[in-house]
C-alpha cells in the first residue's frame, strides 16, 4: 500500500502489538477500497469507525478499525481532518459504516460526503450541539429542546463552551 498511496501516507506504527496506519484524508475512499480488496491483507470487515476530538489542533481523528477474516488480523486506519472539513464516506466500501458514521456525525458533527442518509441517530433530530466534543460539558443539555419538547425548564447552569477542566463547579473525582 505504501507504494500506491505514498502521497497520502503519514506513518505506520505499532503500539502494544496493535498495528496502526495513518493516512491523509484526501483519497480516503480509494484507500479504504484498496484496503478491502487487496490480496495481502484483505480487510473485508469494518469492526468500528469512530472519531476522537483533539481541540488543541482543532482536529478530529477518524479511526477505522478493520479486520481481515482470512488473515485473522486487526489493523487500525487513522486520518485527521480539521473541524470544519468534510470527509468521504466509507458507506460505499462497507455497509457497516452507514450507521457508524451517522453516530460520529451525531456525536461530533463530522460531515460525511456521499453518505446515503446522514441524519442524527441517537439524539433527537432537532437537537443542537455535538455532545462528544471536548467543549461540550458532560452535564450540558439543549435547553431549547427541553423547553420545547418536554415543556419544562431544564434548570441547567452550564453553558456551551465550558470545558471539563476549566469548570469551577466541576467536582473532581478522588481516587
Amino acid at each position, binding site marked *: 500500500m505504501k507504494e500506491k498511496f505514498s502521497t497520502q501516507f503519514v506513518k505506520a506504527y505499532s*503500539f502494544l502489538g496493535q498495528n496502526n496506519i495513518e493516512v491523509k484524508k484526501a483519497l480516503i475512499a480509494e484507500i479504504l477500497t484498496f484496503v478491502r480488496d487487496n490480496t495481502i491483507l484483505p480487510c473485508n470487515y469494518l469492526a468500528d469507525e469512530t472519531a476522537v476530538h483533539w481541540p488543541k489542533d482543532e482536529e478530529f481523528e477518524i479511526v477505522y478499525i478493520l479486520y481481515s477474516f482470512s488473515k485473522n488480523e486487526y489493523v487500525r486506519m487513522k486520518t485527521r481532518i480539521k473541524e470544519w472539513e468534510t470527509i468521504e464516506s466509507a458507506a460505499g466500501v462497507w455497509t457497516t459504516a452507514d*450507521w*457508524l458514521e451517522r453516530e460520529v456525525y451525531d456525536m461530533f458533527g463530522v460531515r460525511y460526503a456521499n453518505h446515503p442518509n446522514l441524519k442524527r441517530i441517537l439524539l433527537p433530530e432537532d437537537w443542537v450541539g455535538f455532545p462528544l466534543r471536548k467543549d461540550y460539558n458532560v452535564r450540558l443539555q439543549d435547553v431549547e429542546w427541553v423547553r420545547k419538547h418536554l415543556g419544562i425548564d431544564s434548570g441547567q447552569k452550564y453553558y456551551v463552551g465550558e470545558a471539563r477542566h476549566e469548570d469551577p463547579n466541576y467536582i473532581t473525582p478522588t481516587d
Partner: protein
Amino acid sequence: MAQAETLFDASELTVSMGPQHPSTHGVLQVKLKLDGERVLDAECVIGYLHRGVEKLGEVQTYGQFVPTLDRMDYIAAVSNCLGYCETIEKLLGVTAPPRAQYIRLIMTELNRITSHLLWLGTHAIDLGAITTFLYCFREREEILKIFENYCGARLTTHMFRIGGTQYELYEGFQDQVRTFIQDFPKKVDEYETLLTENRIWLDRTKNVGIISAKDAIDLGLTGPSLRGSGVQWDLRKAKPYCVYSEFDFDIPVGEVGDTYDRYLVRMEEMRQSARIVSQAIDKIPDGPLMAKMSKIIKPPVGDIYHSIESPKGELGYYIVSDGSTMAYRARVRPPSFVNLQSLKKMVAGHMVADVVAVIGTLDIVLGEIDR
C-alpha cells in the same frame, strides 16, 4: 401514523411499531413501509435509551467507569465488564492472575447462558409459545442466584476489577455451579422438544430473515447471527482472550442464515457454554485475585482496541488515553447497534408478523445500542 387515504388504498402505508411495544425488546421504534401485508422498507429509530455512556467515560476514572458499562448491555453485564477490564489491563501491560481469569471465564460463560435463555424466552413469546418463556426464566433464576451469592447483584453485576477480581469465591460455589451444569443440558433438550421440530415453529422461522454470509460481513453482523449464516468466526477461538485457549469447545455454525439457523446456533452455544464451565469448574487454580498494580490507574499515552465475544456479537472497546486517570476517549463498539443495521435487509419482502420474529432473532438490547 398512516398515510393511506382510504382503508383499501393500494399505495404504501407507513406504520410505526412504536417505542412502547411488547415485542420490541426495549424502546425501539421501527417505521415500516407496507404494501398491504408486505414490508417494503424498515427504518429503525433508536436513541430512546441514550444516556451518554461514552461521555461519562471521559469524566470518570477508569475504575469508576466499570459499573457504568454494566448498564449498557444489562442482560450480559459480565461480558461488558470483562471486555473493559481486559482492555485496560492490556493498556497497562498487566495480566490478571490465573485464578482471577478462571473465575472471570466461568462467570462470563454463565452469563452467556443467561443471555441466551432470555433471548429464547422473549423470542418464543413473541411468536406465541408462551410457556417457553417461563421455563427459561426458571433456569435463569438458578444462575442469577449464583451471581447474587458471588457479588451481591443479579443483573448489573460489576463483577470484575481492573487487574483481576475483588471477591473471593464463596463456599459452596463449585457445588452450586456443578449441580446447575449437570442438569442444564437436559433442560436445553426440553426446550428443543418444545420448539425445534414443532411444525408451527418451523413455519414461522424457516426462510424468515435470510442473510447471506457475504452480506453479513459487509453489514458488520457478528455473533450468533453471523455464525447462523455460515461464517465460522468466534473471537474466543480466533483471538483467544482470558483463558479460553485452554478449553475444548466447538463453534456451532448454521447454513442458510435464516431465523431457524440462528435459533439452532444459539441453542448449541448454550450447550457449549455449559461444556466450558464444566471443564473449568474443576480446574480453578489457587492464587491471588488481583495483579500487582498501583491503586491509581494511569495508563501510558496511546490508544488500544480490544474486543471480546459477548453473547450478542463482537463487543469492542477503543480507549484513547492521555496519561491521566480518566480516559480521553472511551469508545464502545456495541454489537447490537451494528447488528440492527441488518434489520432492513432481513425484513424486506416479508410479512408484518415476521418483523417481530426478525427483531427477536437479532437479539438486540437497547441499552447497548443507545448507550
